[in-house]
Structures are given as C-alpha cells and as structure tokens.
C-alpha cells in the first residue's frame, strides 16, 4: 500500500498515512485530486479506480471515506477488507466510532493503524492481537515504568 487517506463527505482530510516518501507539495496535490475524484463518484459505482499508475480502493463508512492507493499487482478486494478491519478496530476501541472520535483522538487512530499496517504491508490481521497491543500501550500510559 502506498498511502491511506481518511476524509469527510465535505472533503476535509482527517488522517493521512504515507508509506512512500513524497514532497509535501506532491502530497497535497494527490490528496486534493483524489478527494475530488472520489466525492464525485456515485454510490453504485465500483470501489476501484485506476489513477496514474496506481489502483485506488475506497469505501465510505457513514460520513467518512477511507481511501487506499495500492500497486498494480496488489489485491483490490482484500484492500477493501483492510479498510474494514481498521474500521472494526476503531469501532471496538471507541465503542461505535464516529468521525468526531477520529478528529479528537487522531493520534489513537494513527497508533491503531500502525499496529495493523506497517510499512505499507498488512502486519497483524487478528483483531484480538491488535487490541491487545493497544491495551498494552494504554496500560503503559497509566503506569510510569
């Protein structure tokens, strides 16, 4: 996976995670372009589109769009499920997650993603194990080592 973007229906970026280095300017341009393209698509359309030399996989959950850019040989359907697993994790952690949770606890959303995907590759697919890791982090926050 080359990058993941979370943005709202109003086109506001909520989270960005880049696994391939780009200059800030390029990142902004890519983000703008993709947000416009995806928001213009209708609900019944396919979740995949070709964009430059990458494949874009996106899905909408309530007011948030999750959008991943993957390489040509990567599996589109499974990328949809990476997104879903991430949503499940957020849901479990925040207790039926909403956009506001992600706005106010964006750092948590990052930490959770870092457990699921590392360096652009799926690292741990077990929901239990990820939540265990996050719980261990929270525990450390409460007790000073």
């Amino acid at each position, binding site marked *: 996976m080359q990058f993941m973007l979370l943005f709202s229906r109003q086109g506001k970026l909520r989270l960005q995670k880049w696994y391939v280095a780009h200059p800030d300017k390029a990142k902004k341009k890519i983000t703008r372009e993709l947000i416009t393209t995806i928001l213009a698509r209708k609900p019944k359309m396919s979740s995949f589109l070709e964009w430059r030399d990458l494949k874009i996989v996106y899905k909408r959950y309530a007011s948030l769009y999750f959008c991943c850019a993957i390489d040509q040989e990567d599996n589109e359907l499974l990328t949809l499920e990476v997104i879903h697993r991430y949503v499940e994790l957020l849901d479990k952690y925040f207790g039926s997650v909403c956009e506001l949770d992600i706005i106010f606890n*964006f750092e948590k959303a990052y930490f959770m993603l870092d457990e699921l995907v590392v360096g652009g590759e*799926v690292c741990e697919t077990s929901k239990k194990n990820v939540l265990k890791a996050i719980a261990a982090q929270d525990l450390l926050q409460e007790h000073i080592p």
Partner: protein
Amino acid sequence: MPAVRGDGMRGLAVFISDIRNCKSKENEVKRINKELANIRSKFKGDKTLDGYQKKKYVCKLLFIFLLGHDIDFGHMEAVNLLSSNKYTEKQIGYLFISVLVNTNSDLIKLIVQNIKNDLNSRNPVHVNLALQCIANIGSKEMAEAFGHDIPKLLVSGETMDVVKQSAALCLLRLFRTNPDIIPGGEWTSRIIHLLNDQHLGVVTAASSLIEALVKLNPDEYKGCVSLAVSRLSRIITASYTDLQDYTYYFVPAPWLSVKLLRLLQHYPPPEDPGVRGRLNECLDAILNKAQEPPKSKKVQHSNAKNAVLFEAISIIIHSDSEAALLVRACNQLGQFLSHRETNLRYLALETMCLLATSEFSHEAVKKHQETVINSLKTERDVSVRQRAVDLLYAMCDRTNAEQIVHEMLNYLESADYSIREEMVLKVAILAEKYAGDYTWYVDVILNLIRIAGDYVSEEVWYRVIQIVVNREDVQGYAAKTVFEALQAPACHENMVKVGGYILGEFGNLIAGDKRSAPQVQFQLLHSKYHLCSASTRALLLTTYIKFINLFPEIKTEIQNILKCDSNLRCSDAELQQRASEYLHLSLVTSTDVLATVLEEMPPFAEKESSILAVLKKKSGRMSAQEAHKEARAAGGAGGAAAAVAAGAVKNSTNDKNAKNSSADLFGISTPPVNSQNNSSSNTGVLVDVLGDLYSSSNNSSMPSVATNGTNSASPATLTSGVTDNIKKFVCKNNGVLYENDIIQIGVKSEFRQNLGRIGVFYGNKTSMPLQGFLPSVSISSADSGRVSVQVKPVESTIEAGAQVQQFVNCECIDHFEDLPEMLVCFTYGSVPQRLSLKLPLSINKFFEPTDMNGESFFARWKNLSSPSQESQQIFKTTCPMESGSIRTKVMGFGMQILEGIDPNPENFVCAGILHTRTQQIGCLMRLEPNRQAQMYRLTIRASKDGTAKILCNLLSQQF
C-alpha cells in the same frame, strides 16, 4: 466534546473544539495563527517545559498540520520527546516524526540514536515503536545504522512474536531503500523458514518480506516454494474454526493466503511433481469453494473469499499450463460478469482480459462475448465500461472481429468522452489486424472519423492512407467511399484530410463516373477549403497540383485558385510557398515532367502500426496486457499486416522516393532525411505517412518486436535502429545505445590514455522480469590482440522496471578498426531474444588532444608525407552543414581544434595523440566543408601506417 480516551490532553481537546466552532475559514486561520504564535513562544521561552506540555504542543502542531497548514518548527521538541521515559510522550514524538519529518532532515542523526536506544529496550512495546518508525520513514542512513541488528532480531529465538512481525516489515522497508542490507548465506534459509512459524501473524508479515526478496533474487530463495505451498495447503484445508482469530468472516487467513499465492507467482510451476500436485490441489479447492453456498451474507465474507479466488486465478494465468484450471477460472469469472456486485463485475472483466490472451482459455472467454457487449451497453459505471472495452479488445480475433468492431462503433456514439480516444485507437487496430477484406477496413475508419472525428488522432488517418496506398485492390473503393462521405454537409476536418489525400492519389479511378467527374471532385474538396485549418489547406493544395496532373481539363480552374490573393499572398508562409511553387510547377513544366514529379505514391514500407504504439503509450495497463499477449502470440496474429507487408516489399527500392516525396508534399520545412539510414537498413525509417517527419520520435519508439514474427523456437534478432545510434557514439561517450519496447540500453564511458571503462546500463521497460540475461562482447578476428575488453558479470535477471549496470574495462593495445560486437541475450515472457549490437568503443576514444602553433603543425604535417600515413576522403554531406554541429562533432572526436591556423575560418585543423599500450600515434587532421557543393574534404595524417585510414573512415561517417 466527546470523551477523550486514555491519557487525554485537555488543552488539545479545547483547541480542537475551538477550531471546529470557527464560523469561517478566516476565523479558523486566525485561531491557528494565534495558537502557532503561542506554541512558538512557549518553545522559545526561558521556562523549561515539562514532558506533558511538550507533548501537548507537539500534538497541537500535528493537528494543525493535518488541517493542511505547513509546520516549520517543533521538530526539535518532538525529537526530545523520543528520549522521554514516559511512553505516551515517546509515542507522540514518534508520531510527529513519522508524519512530519523528511528522510533527509538534519535531525536524522539524533533520531537514529534515539531509535537505537529503544531497539535495545527490554520493553517490547518500546522496541516495536522504534521498528514501526523505521518502517515508516526508513532512509538510506537508517539502512546503514540498523541493517545489522534487525535481521538478527527477526530470526532470533528470543524475540517476541509481535516484535518479529514489525522487524520483518521494517527490514522490508530498509531493503527497499537499499537492497544490499539483506545478508545472504545461512540467513536465506533462516528467513525462508519463517514461513513455518507457529504464529500466523509472523508468517503474514514475513511473507511480504520474502516476496520482495524473491522478486530480486528468485534463485537464492527458491527453497520458499515448497514451504509456501505446504503452508497454503494447510490453510486451505483448514476449517474456519481451526485458525481462530486469523479466520476472517469464515475465510481462513485470507491475507496470508493471498500473500503466499503472490509469492508463488514469482516462480514457474514447481518442478517437483509432489509440490506441483499439492499446489494444483489448493487451486482446485479454492475454485471449488467459490461454488459452495456462502457461509455468510456479509460482503466481508464474499470479498475475502473472492480475494483469494482472484489471486488463485492470477497464478493459474501466470503458469499458463493447466488447461483445465484455466477453463474453470474462465467459467467462474463468467458467472461474476453478471453478479450484482459492481466490484466483482469490474474485477472479472479485468482478469478475463488476461485469460483471453492464453491459447488454452481464449475460446472459453469468447463464450461470454454477448454478456460483455451487454455490459458495454448497460453498465452504469464508466470505469466498468472501460474494462468491458478492454476485454472486447482482448478477446477479438478473426472470427468475431466484425461483430466486436460493429458493437464498439455503436457504443462509440454515446461513449464517455474520457474513453473515446482510446476506443478509437482500439477499433482502428482491430479493424486493421483482422481485416479479411480491406473495403471493410476502409469503411470502419471512415465511420470512426464520422462518429468521433475529434478523437481520431493523426496516427489513425495516416495509417488508413498508408494501407490504401499499399493495396491496389481497395484504392477505387476508397476513392468512391471518401467521395461519398465528403458530400455530407458537415464533415469532419479529418475526413477532408483523408479525402484530399486519397482523391489526389486515386481520384482518377472514379473520374469515369459523371457524378464524380474531375471537376465535381475538385469543387467538392474546394468547398471545404475555407473551413479548414492551415495544415489541411496545405494538404489540399498538394491535392490540387496532383489534380492538375491527373485531370489536365481542370488545370486552368485550379491555377486560378492557386493564383488568387488569399493563397498566393497568404499570411501563412507555408501556404503561400506551396501556392506559388505549385502554380509555377504547373506553368513551366511539360506534362511529362509534371507526371514524373507527381507520380503515384510508391507503397510504404511495412512495419507495425504506429497506432499500437500510441495506444501503449496512452496506458501503462495496456502495455502490460499487450506485452503479455505479444510474448505469447509472438506475432502469429498479425496475419493481415503480414499480407500487407508482402505486398509492400516488392517495391522496397522505392523507399527513398517515398520518403523524399512525402517530405516534399507535406512539409517543405522539414529537415532533409539522412539518406545513409536508408541505404543501411531495410526497416525503413519513414513508414507511416509523414508521421515520423513531423514528430521527433525515431523508430526506436516503435515496437519492433511484434513485427519480427518471432516464435519461441528461433530467437529473434532485433537490430533495427541500432546503426543510427552506434554511429553517434563515435563523437560522444554517453547516451542511449539501443531501445525497443522491452529494453533500453544506455552507455556512459570514460577514457584515459590507453585505458577505458564503459558502463552499460540495461533497463527493463516491461512489467515482467527479463530472465537468463546474458550480455557478451567479442572482438573481430582482424582486431584480436589490438584491443582487449574485460566484461564484468551481471545478474541473470532484470526485474520489471529495474535497471542493472555492467562495466566493461578496455585497453587499446594497437590501432584497431572494428567496433567490438556485443550480443545481448535474454528471455522475455517465454520468448528468447537476441540483440546484436556494437560496443561503442572506437579507436578515437583514446585520443589525447594536443595544442600546437601553426609553425609546428605545418612542420609535422610535412613530416608525415608517406602515402600510407595519409588518408583523404571527399564525400557528400548527409546532414545540414551547420558549423556549430560540425564543431561539436569534431570536438567529440577527441582531437584538439587548432584555431587560426587555416586561413579559411570554415575549415577545421586538429591535432591529437592516440594512446595505445605499445606506442603513441601522432595524428593531424584537416576538414574542409564546402557549402555550395554540400561536400566535405577530410584529410588525416598519422605517424603509424594505416591509422589515418581507420580514423578517416570513422570520422567521415559522421557528416
């Protein structure tokens, strides 16, 4: 304000609320600037901030960055947080760094030190944090700093599973920045054996790493094949309860399955019959499961299951050996074509394109033609319709071409603008490729222009003209049809162009009919003249002069047109020039001369349609597919084109005329064509009507592979385009030596005294690896012992898109004449390729420029007076005599240009010393350009017998 989890930062939450409450963008910016000023003053203030405050401010900066504002401070404070002993502070520090720090930041050294400390921590949570950070921003420096420790961490028995997972992917990131960091030897097997790990999370992470390693070095990691197959087999046969939390919506370990299937696609089907059997069983089982009723109605279940299925189909296509599996895969995809999920329809169409290129499944794909045509008509999503177009294109063959082209033309009328151009190209290619009857082809192209004229690129209409010119049997029909098409009240300018050209050439074939008598033809064309752009008018003027030749009865009428002020005094120089030249041509020449000048166009030499090249350029995806197809079909499908070729070859001696006359007819301003190209290669530089003259693309951009009619039994030798490039290297050291659709070969060389080093760069332009890559260099027998070359070995595989470099060390022992032969062999797809090239190593590379005054030059010149020491050539130029470019070439040749010695400033006088191992050869040169005669006289004298002649031959070819 929702509850803040964990160890919340109240100040941050308040700030976020403030921002959200801002009524306008201006307010928001104001609030942010206020906050930035506040943070800046805190960071600069005298009071030392405690960890919590630093964390809070760094977090605010992060939030501001996420809102889209630039952040140019706070990096140092974030790095400070890394060494905090409070986990939450450390974590925020790492987050800031992975989101905001560039890999080339000055702070990298500090960061690296902090990461090092955390990697050595006893707390696995800290170690993981450090590993994730490397995996996120891993740079070359980090590869150096951690390349040693991380592999150890990965395979050590003491490392915790969760750390191993991060370590594997961290190593993957470092490997991507620097492939050398992976230790070889015993490490290979230890890494491979991670596939056997108990913990599925570890296997999942490790398989991504192993896939990347395999891509670069399949042989070294061969051992992973059987391990991957048995792991896969265990997953596929497991019940969904066996794998506990690694089962995802009733699908056992879908991520791991997909990764293993991907890994196996880097190898041919396993040789070991046991392993191969087991793999096929897995694939069978996956296909069987697709037919079972779903275990859940949730889309997650079907997505995960089908993700594995598509990956399995992908490996089946990749092996292309099991006919039964291919056909089953095709049937499965056929079901998906009418599935209610848009995503599945999309993927099925896309994947079927690949199946259509396999001889085993091509027929099976064709069975779904009606469904695909239906998708084209009814699908509501344009990206899905685009896939349907791709598939129709891929499944097209002689039997269904008429129907598919018909349907595509129908669809074109209502097609989305975004895909029209590509569709036009595809229709044009299919119509040409599968034309049994060329009248059909002409009809299709004219229809294209009628329906989507704006999207018909130059290549398309050049091509139809080329084919009509080459095929006598269709010329009359073409003339009649364009004549009719032009009668439409509003016809597209491209139609006028085609009409103008074809009537100019073949209007006489329909002139017998009263309805299309010469005068009618002329008036019809001229009625469009004033509506057209300058380039079309230029073309029409040429048609008019051809008409004067074909139909003397309308000569006066045409002369009147040429004479009129709007042409003869046209503000467009090109039009004015044509009008006046054509007018005078018609006034002063006899009919015989006119007939000779305006003789019918000779056939164009044949090569692959340039439309295909355009299509390939248009989309990378296409080129992958085409490459796939070409590797398989190996030119077998190009029957129609071959037939044209046969017709064209008989007149290949006319190539030169074709080139010159088309240059004349279409662009007086175009530069003269290098006639040397013509005599030296039969491939023909200009093949498309004027295409190459207008565009700067040389023939290397045209795919030469397909036209070679390769088959896997006899390796293809591809040499077109070579001669030109190698010649240029006499006077330069760097550049592209050779290029086709598969490979680009570049050269960078340096020479000192009698030694030299040539760096040869081989770039794989395709999406498949080039295997069995073996370049070799040989010296002609005449030159053996005079020059020595030592070729460094190079890896046998060039990955897709990768470039490898090879060094050739060389030494000049004595003067030598021929360029060393270079043979590059490799396998692309399954087709062996041979490129027979020359190594750009000529004797003049060993020149050392020598300065001297006129007196000593003349003294030495006189000394070298024996006939074997001198060589002189007088030759005609083949390129423009422009003194700047002559100077560049002479300088590139390696001798010193001596100024002020020759009384004629146009002439060049040079001196240099050739270094060989045995001796130094003094050389003097004089080059006299004669602009009037367009000729040169080149005289070289050298102290060693015979050297002058070699040098003279080399340099004279440059002009």
